[in-house]
């Protein structure tokens, strides 16, 4: 006796049931038992020679049965069997398999991402979009950590990270990619190790330098979407300008104390300069290091940024474009403001004056980033 997991698209056959209890001492008997209960299932699993159809994979406790004893694999009461067919236009159709199509999802991927794939907004096609997506995360700290983590878990195939700092003891109150043993290690190395442990299928591209006017246009155009986890105004204006000039969507987040902000800048809509034409003078708005920040707010805003990236890649839902979300963790109130493209914006306005990257340290009156890093 065992339980068989039925994917959503078969549940019309099983009267909506997700799990079916079946009789049988091995896989074959269990599947026959399922076919007895729901006769329509038989031809979806077996061919005319009573062999498993080639586009159907059978798993027992997340192991494909060909790794075990095939149809003779023994089953016990606690075992969970899953019947996972390839879907047309999605995971491993028969023709794709025969053609050796590299873009088909492998069975391990189908299982790993099954909680996403079974949602109609994702499906196998969506999962392949995620795998083929390239996302740049600026910074592997408070915001960049949860962003990179959830993107990696979701199977976003290529994740670039710009980061030049080393792990400090004071980072560990919030920066989830780094652990106590990582202190003094480059954050990028620690981030890559952590993400690799969570999902070895994701490629992490390391950019072990601060993003600057000299390198931003060499890096950003290689990605589909950019996520901002910067910790200073100079980098925020730089990332904003570079994304606009490169035609890339920027998923922006910022945090301080118990506050968080979230928005998405898409070229043609409003940008960071529309929202804040000038940076504050140095010292006017404190940094997290100076004023403090709630560790968990990085997780709230970072998870939301990852969610917006996910939606952008899959082209689903309502993006945070032209909307600014404000989160106050103390009252746990979420407020939303309307954003508009400013026709007078020097970058994306009607008569732009910023047509290439500028000196952002001079613009923000801040010391160069390299100096900050040494502090």
């Amino acid at each position, binding site marked *: 006796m065992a339980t068989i997991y039925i994917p959503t698209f078969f549940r019309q056959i099983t009267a909506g049931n997700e799990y079916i209890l079946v009789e049988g001492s091995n896989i074959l008997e269990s599947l026959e038992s399922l076919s007895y209960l729901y006769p329509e299932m038989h031809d979806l699993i077996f061919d005319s020679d009573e062999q498993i159809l080639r586009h159907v994979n059978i798993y027992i406790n997340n192991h494909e049965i060909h790794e075990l004893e095939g149809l003779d694999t023994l089953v016990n009461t606690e075992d969970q069997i899953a019947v996972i067919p390839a879907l047309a236009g999605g995971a491993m159709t028969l023709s794709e398999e025969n053609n050796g199509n590299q873009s088909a999802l492998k069975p391990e991927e189908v299982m790993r991402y099954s909680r996403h794939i079974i949602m109609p907004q994702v499906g196998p096609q969506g999962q392949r979009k995620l795998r083929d997506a390239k996302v740049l995360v600026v*910074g592997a700290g408070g915001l960049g950590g949860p962003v990179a983590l959830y993107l990696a878990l979701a199977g976003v195939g290529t994740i670039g990270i710009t980061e030049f700092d080393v792990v400090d003891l004071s980072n560990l109150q919030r920066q989830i990619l780094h652990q106590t043993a990582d202190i003094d290690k480059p954050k990028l190395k620690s981030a890559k190790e952590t993400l690799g442990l969570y999902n070895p299928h994701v490629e992490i591209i390391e950019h072990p330098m601060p993003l600057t006017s000299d390198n931003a246009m060499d890096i950003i155009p290689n990605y589909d979407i950019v996520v901002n986890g910067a*910790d200073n*105004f100079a980098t925020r204006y730089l990332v904003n300008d570079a994304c606009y000039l490169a035609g890339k969507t920027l998923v922006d987040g910022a945090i301080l104390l118990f506050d968080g902000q979230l928005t998405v800048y898409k070229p043609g809509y409003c940008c960071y300069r529309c929202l804040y034409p000038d940076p504050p003078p140095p010292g006017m*708005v404190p940094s997290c290091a100076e004023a403090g920040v709630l560790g968990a707010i990085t997780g709230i805003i970072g998870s939301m940024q990852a969610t917006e990236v996910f939606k952008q890649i899959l082209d689903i839902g309502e993006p945070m474009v032209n909307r600014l979300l*404000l989160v106050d963790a103390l009252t746990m109130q979420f*407020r939303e*403001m309307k954003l508009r493209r*400013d026709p007078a914006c020097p970058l994306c306005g009607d008569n732009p004056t910023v047509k290439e990257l500028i000196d952002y340290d001079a613009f923000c009156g801040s010391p160069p980033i390299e100096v900050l890093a040494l502090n």
Partner: protein
Amino acid sequence: MTIKVQVTSVIQKVVNGNSEFEAEGSTISELIENIEDKYPGFLQQIADDSGELHRFVNIYVNDEDIRFINGKDTPLNSGDVVAFLPALSGGL
């Protein structure tokens, strides 16, 4: 005109730590003056020495940016919600 005023954490320190309070005013200018009377130091957070609003602080009336309404002359009605939001840079 009693207006509901909301401020984020950076400005909260000059208004006795409140995130939300009430103030009077029939325009944004009047509202700011009245808040400054009640909480000296408030103006310095949102405007420069000549009284010009900082370009890194946005003011919203009922979620709409006053720059796209009528700036400091934007009229206010009883029950309006006015939010003062400075830019945040933190990400680390």
